[in-house]
């Protein structure tokens, strides 16, 4: 039952991303799909935050350094109530706040503007250092892409995080083995990847990046050890969730999807048939609180599934105050 709910949730989040594609006319869908479970576990189970107060001092900071995967982040942030899902309809539009790469402070919940690769980890180091100076207990999570690790600045930052013994900093690597024009092994091999991060002074874990239970288990162990920054290498599949786009290079970035392609994406994500969306359900979702609860993780509850709709809308759980410790 839980697995089924999880699957429904993942599919619903992915449908939201297809919706952004549909209305924005473009996007890095496959790059976002490999992130869905990583982000949903973080926002459902791990991170502290207050959607009604996105700059809440004690929040955990999450930087999506691979900014091109932003549709996944937008889906989660809207789901949690940082902004209305009606913004999905304005993805990449002149009157919207959601662009093809995320921007700070334009988008509530986004901690830094990313898109130019190799920037996020350094910014995260600054935030983690500040948390230490100020004796604040929040954590800093930076999600990087595997292709992004071609950038030398990532490794400058890795040395620096280690030098400063930032155990409040975690880098999560979305290791989907693909980048824009070829596999990562063909373009610029990252292997031995785990031992690279280890040799740069990180405590490293590897995990199936689409297994909610494995991800939750690993993230709940943070920090892995005192005095070392943390790295979680998530083995993922680019385009995960729709078989015909998985590991297909042409889906790195797409624009102007034809109607039949959109229909096939929705269909592959569990929609019985493609119907006009009732966008009014994407409004008035702000002001929720979210986070972990004493009564269990969010996916243990079926409240977020609206089973009456053909396109179930993921909504936030209202059952608990924010975790504050």
């Amino acid at each position: 039952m839980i697995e089924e709910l999880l699957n429904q949730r993942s599919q619903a989040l992915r449908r939201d991303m297809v919706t952004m594609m549909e209305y924005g006319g473009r996007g890095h869908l496959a790059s976002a799909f490999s992130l869905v479970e990583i982000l949903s576990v973080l926002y459902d189970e791990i991170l502290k935050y207050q959607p009604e107060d996105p700059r809440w001092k004690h929040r955990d900071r999450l930087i999506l350094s691979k900014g091109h995967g932003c549709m996944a982040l937008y889906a989660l942030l809207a789901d949690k109530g940082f902004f209305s899902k009606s913004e999905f309809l304005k993805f990449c539009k002149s009157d919207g706040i959601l662009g093809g790469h995320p921007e700070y402070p334009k988008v509530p919940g986004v901690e830094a503007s990313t898109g130019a690769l190799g920037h996020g980890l350094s910014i995260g180091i600054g935030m983690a250092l500040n948390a230490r100076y100020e004796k604040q207990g929040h954590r800093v999570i930076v999600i990087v892409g595997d292709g992004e690790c071609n950038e030398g600045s990532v490794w400058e930052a890795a040395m620096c995080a280690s030098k400063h013994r930032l155990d409040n900093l975690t880098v999560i690597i979305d290791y989907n083995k693909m980048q824009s024009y070829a596999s990562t092994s063909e373009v610029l091999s990252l292997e031995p990847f785990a031992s690279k991060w280890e040799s740069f002074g990180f405590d490293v874990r590897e995990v199936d990046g689409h297994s909610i239970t494995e991800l939750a288990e690993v993230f709940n162990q943070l920090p892995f050890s005192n005095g070392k920054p943390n790295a979680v290498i998530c083995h993922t599949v680019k385009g995960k969730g729709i078989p015909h786009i998985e590991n297909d290079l042409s889906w790195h970035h797409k624009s102007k999807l034809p109607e039949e392609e959109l229909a096939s994406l929705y269909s592959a994500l569990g929609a019985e048939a493609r119907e006009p969306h009732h966008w009014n359900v994407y409004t008035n979702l702000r002001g929720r609180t979210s986070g972990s609860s004493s009564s269990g993780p969010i996916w243990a509850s079926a409240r977020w599934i609206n089973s009456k709709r053909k396109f179930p809308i993921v909504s936030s759980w209202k059952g608990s105050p924010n975790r504050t410790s």
Partner: protein
Amino acid sequence: MEGISEQNVIGMAAGLAIEGKIPYVNTIATFLTRRCFEQIAVDLCLHNLNVRLIGNGGGMVYAPLGPTHLATEDIALMRSLPNVTIIAPADADEMRRLMPQTVDHEGPVYIRLAKGYDPIVTNDQVPFEIGKGLHMRDGSDVLLVTTGVTLGPAQEAAEQLSDLNIDCGILHMPTIKPFDTETFLDLSSMARTIVTVEEHTLMGGLGSAAAEVIAEANFYTPKKFKRIGIPDVFPDEYGSQASLMEKYGISAGKIVSDVREMMEVPIVSVV
């Protein structure tokens, strides 16, 4: 000390500044502006963060070390970015007046330093304020416009020109961006001849900023205008900052001869 990792250091500073700190990043000017331009553009300027970049060896200070170490287009690079304030103090006293003001200033600041121990050419009779041009000397015939250490040669030149009955004013622009258009237009509207002097490529620095303002000012009476600075080349010899400045005519003597030529005073009368 954070190592030879300019890209990372700018990102770290951005992270600290997002959290409310005011980081001061100090390193060699050219490595601060060329090497990590994208980090400055995206992490600092796009976010409009309170980070202070202090570039050592602006211009041709590192002449003996060759063109890899010269910062001859740093101002042009920084000028092209929104939100950043660019300041090139003329001497240590001006630096002393500047630094307290950087604490409350909004947005990123690039401070271009000279080599240190340069002659003191400023005084506290003209109050320093970030964003303001400093009217250092009155003069009705010519307006010399300077930034950084070129204030010194301009003052020498003004004295020499005075001996030739050419009345030369000086507008010192320690802040190049935002350009103090109001003060510049006030003074330049009264002068027949305007000369900018900078230790920087002629493309995109002080002279360009002045030219842009003049071009759109539509003065009722025509002006003569000249930029003195480094031509569009990589300096191809070593020596010293002084020798390269002499080579490119960033000197009192060249200012005098250029002004005389523009004022149509015969060269033969040069003492």
